[in-house]
Every structure is written in structure tokens, then in C-alpha cells.
């Protein structure tokens, strides 16, 4: 195995290679930085690379492991963080010109935990400005490693691009209406939005206090389970976090799905899907059936009706957070994000309260829909990736507007607070990744991961890597 090949290993395989003496943390981190040097500019996935600090950390982690001090699977693993995650002493822009030059004094809780677990930060990753729907023109677009010039699928774009291209083994993204799961879907990765309250958001620049989640993007379900185990759990600095004990997700992974009742969404939900999305989803469901799952149809609430509550809550909470900075420095914000925030001035408190009542109803409706099943599966996204900036794309001979289907399958679970994970599930006819989303009951990430792992065993899509850029 060449040093560059180390970049294509899963996180857990890289961890195993270090323990087997086949590579050190210096080799693994060095390989990630070499590949970053080679492909990083073309992908535009990073805003700040911290190569020198990363190599110093890698050397320290390698020495620890040689001395028998093992911090767990993340020990010596190169990772990136979406640049809305505070990193002490390292610039954190939120993807906005208005924050250039700002250096946090402390780490976000989740990064402090990853650091304690031995992870090595190699870079801060590109994102939509403040994770709010559009890139700041100053920073440009991150691109999809499966097809340069194509969308990565959401605000955690640099995180997804960097993991898919092998510039690191895991990244942290944030997800308010699908910004972890959308990029995972477009880039052939695993993306986890855990239960609301499972992962601390202290030190993650907020977009929407009651919808935001932070979580991992990785190449395999096992890798995602390992990262979530480290970052999950009560944090006194985030009053929304749960005091529940965090299970050992990795240990529970191979439990399988034999006899498990899994709901498959019905035609109403699939109506907007491309033929490729239907085909790959049907294949994924068949794979779960082969693994022993009992698949039953489940009718879930109409996702098209959720734009209202999701948009109202996000806009109101985002504008409240940005109001003063926006008034002081409107030019610091890109025009698209400024306009999106500005919409909030036209909304009323009535709208916000109504949105939260609709949300309460949705939670009850989804609980009822899931009665009798352990989880529900659906396509991760109705279509595959498309050229950056496209507003329409041709799907099965018809021109489809992209905005109404963006986040269509994901935002519901930010509203309900349920755990949801996107996994790679084959390719469309143009060779771009397709995906499946697995949604479980609140705090039942164990079931979500077990289904994801069974899906990997059945399909093997997690082993595919994008073509090398150079």
C-alpha cells in the first residue's frame, strides 16, 4: 500500500493500520496533507489548512500510540471541521466575509471531545455562508469529487467534498434542514443528523436554535458511529443536551436487521423521485429484505407542506441571531444571505408560534406513522447532483425546478428531532451517487446504525471511491 492509498481507507481501517504497525499517525496525516496539497485547490473544499499544527499533533499522537496510550478509534485520524465550528486559536469564518479575522478563544464542545479522543485537525472546511443556503461569492463554490463543477448538495459542502475525495477520514457538518445529509447524498457518503439534544451545539455558530444539529460525515456507517460516540452526550454549556447515557454505537452495529420491521415510504412520498432514485431505493430496500428485515409500507406526513414551518422557524431564529451584525455591517454578508435574512423582518411573531404548533402536530403525526416499525427508509434525495448554480435540471425527459425539492426529504426530521442518516445507495445513469435515508425513533441511533450497516453489507456501495482528480 502506497502512502497515498492510506487516504482511501475508512477511518476504522486507518485506525487498524496504525495499531498493526503498518502506518503511523504521521503517515496517515501526512498522506492527507499531501493529497490536500495536490487536490485541495481544485476541490475548493477548505478555507484554512493547518498543516504545520496537524503534523505536530500527528507526531504527538504517534508517540503516544507507540508508548501504549491509545485514545480510541479517532487517535491520529485526520479530520476537517465545517468552518462554523469554533477552534481555539484558528480562524472561524462561518463562510462569511463579515467574520474574516475572527479567532475563537475556545473550542466547540464537540471539537474539544474529538481532540481529547486523539483526532487531528487538518483543515476548516468550506460551507454556505452561515450555513444558510448560498455561498459567499468571495469564497466561491466547493465542488463534488465525483464530478468537478457539480454541486455537493448543501451547506456542509467542504466537509463532504473533503471526505469523499480522501483529504481526511471524517468531517463535522451542521444540519438545519438537511445540510449534513444532502451533501452526503450527493457525494456518496454517510451523513448523520442525530436526535435533537444528543450532540452539543456549544461553539457551533447557530443558524436556528431549535432545528440545528451537528454531526459526522464519513465514508462508512462504522466510521460515523465511532465519531458520534465521541461527540454525543450531555454538555453543561448547551442546555438542550440530554443527560441520557450514550450507547456504544460501534459495538451494537453488527446486530443485524433479521426480523426487524422497517417502514418503506409509499408512492405519495416517492412521486417526485427520478427513475434512478426509485431504482436505487428499490434495490436498497431489497438488500435490507435479503438481510432479514420485514419491510412494510408506511405513509408519512406530506413533506411539501413543511416548507412553511421550517422556513419560518429558521428565518426568525437566524435573523434574531444576525440582526445586530447585519445592521452594523450589511456589506459583510453576501447578497443572497442578506436577502434571506431580510425576509424575517416581514414575518410576525404569530407566524413563528403557528410554525411551532404545526411542528407539534408533525411530531405527533410522525410518531403515529412509525407505530409498529423500528425505522422508516426513503431515498436520501429525489435526484442526483447537478451543475453548480443550476436552477433546473432535466429528469427523465422533463425539466424539474430544483429549489422546491431541495431538502424535501430531510427538513422534516429537523422539525421532529428524530435521528436520520443518509447512506450511499448506488449510482444514477450518469455515474453520480444516489442515496437512502434511514430515520429512527428519538435517541434510537443504535437501530439507525444497525440498519445502515446491514445496508452496507447488502450493497457494498461504501467501498466505492470517486475517480482521482489528478
Amino acid at each position, binding site marked *: 500500500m502506497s502512502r497515498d492509498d492510506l487516504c482511501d481507507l475508512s477511518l476504522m481501517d486507518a485506525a487498524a493500520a496504525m495499531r498493526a504497525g503498518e502506518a503511523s499517525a504521521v503517515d496517515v496525516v501526512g498522506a492527507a496533507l499531501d493529497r490536500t496539497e495536490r487536490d485541495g485547490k481544485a476541490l475548493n473544499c477548505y478555507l484554512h489548512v493547518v498543516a504545520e499544527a496537524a503534523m505536530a499533533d500527528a507526531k504527538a499522537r504517534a508517540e503516544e500510540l507507540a508508548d501504549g496510550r491509545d485514545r480510541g478509534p479517532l487517535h491520529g485520524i485526520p479530520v476537517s471541521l465545517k468552518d462554523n465550528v469554533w477552534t481555539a486559536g484558528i480562524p472561524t469564518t462561518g463562510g462569511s466575509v463579515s467574520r474574516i479575522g475572527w479567532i475563537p478563544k475556545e473550542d466547540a464542545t464537540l471539537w474539544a471531545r474529538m481532540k481529547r479522543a486523539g483526532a487531528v485537525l487538518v483543515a476548516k472546511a468550506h460551507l454556505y455562508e452561515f450555513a444558510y443556503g448560498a455561498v459567499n461569492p468571495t469564497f466561491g463554490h466547493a465542488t463534488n469529487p465525483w464530478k468537478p463543477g457539480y454541486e455537493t448538495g448543501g451547506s456542509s459542502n467542504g466537509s463532504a467534498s473533503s471526505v469523499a475525495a480522501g483529504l481526511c477520514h471524517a468531517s463535522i457538518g451542521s444540519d438545519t434542514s438537511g445540510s449534513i445529509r444532502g451533501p452526503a447524498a450527493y457525494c456518496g457518503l454517510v451523513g448523520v443528523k442525530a436526535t*435533537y439534544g444528543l450532540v452539543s451545539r456549544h461553539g457551533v455558530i447557530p443558524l436556528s436554535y431549535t432545528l440545528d444539529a451537528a454531526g459526522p460525515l464519513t465514508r462508512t456507517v462504522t466510521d460515523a458511529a465511532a465519531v458520534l460516540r465521541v461527540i454525543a452526550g450531555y454538555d453543561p454549556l448547551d442546555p438542550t443536551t440530554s443527560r441520557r447515557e450514550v450507547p456504544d454505537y460501534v459495538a451494537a452495529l453488527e446486530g443485524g436487521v433479521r426480523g426487524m420491521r422497517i417502514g418503506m415510504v409509499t408512492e405519495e412520498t416517492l412521486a417526485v423521485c427520478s427513475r434512478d432514485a426509485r431504482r436505487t431505493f428499490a434495490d436498497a430496500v431489497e438488500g435490507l429484505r435479503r438481510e432479514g428485515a420485514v419491510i412494510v409500507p408506511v405513509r408519512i406526513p406530506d413533506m411539501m407542506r413543511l416548507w412553511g414551518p421550517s422556513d*419560518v422557524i429558521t428565518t426568525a431564529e437566524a435573523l434574531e441571531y444576525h440582526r445586530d451584525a447585519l445592521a452594523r455591517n450589511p456589506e459583510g454578508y453576501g447578497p443572497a444571505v442578506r436577502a434571506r435574512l431580510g425576509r424575517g423582518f416581514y414575518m410576525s411573531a*404569530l407566524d413563528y408560534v403557528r410554525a411551532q404548533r404545526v411542528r407539534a402536530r408533525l411530531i405527533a403525526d410522525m410518531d403515529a406513522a412509525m407505530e409498529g416499525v423500528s425505522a422508516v427508509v426513503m431515498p436520501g434525495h429525489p435526484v442526483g447532483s447537478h451543475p453548480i448554480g443550476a436552477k433546473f435540471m432535466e429528469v427523465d425527459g422533463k425539466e424539474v425546478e430544483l429549489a422546491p425539492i431541495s431538502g424535501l426529504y430531510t427538513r422534516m426530521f429537523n422539525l421532529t428531532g428524530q435521528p436520520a442518516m443518509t447512506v450511499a445507495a448506488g449510482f444514477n445513469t450518469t455515474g453520480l451517487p444516489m442515496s437512502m435515508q434511514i430515520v429512527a425513533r428519538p435517541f434510537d441511533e443504535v437501530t439507525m446504525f444497525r440498519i445502515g450497516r446491514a445496508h452496507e453489507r447488502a450493497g457494498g456501495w461504501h467501498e466505492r471511491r470517486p475517480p482521482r482528480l489528478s
Partner: protein
Amino acid sequence: MPREEETLLEYAKLTGAPVTPEDVKALTPDTLTLFTRIRAMWEIDVDGFEMATTFDRED
């Protein structure tokens, strides 16, 4: 009058928001879309549901 502008005025009537036809002219398409969504949201029956205030789904 375009459908979105009508929607906004209907929304204003429904919620009592102080929106006039002149205001509509100054709004971006994005804002009009938001109001279309808000109007649809107000049509969802929430009888029997209180405002959601906690989302952590603890028992």
C-alpha cells in the same frame, strides 16, 4: 396581479400583518415565496396541539 402578490395580500388579511400593495412591490421573489409558504402553513389544522417548546423528545 401576479399570484404571489395576491398570496401575500391574502396572507396579510389572514394574519393581520400590516402589508399593503405598495409593500409588495418592494419585496424580492424569495420573500414572496416565503409568504406563499406561510399562507400554506396557516391552512394546516393544529387544533389540539400546543406550541412545541421542547424538542429533545425526553420521555
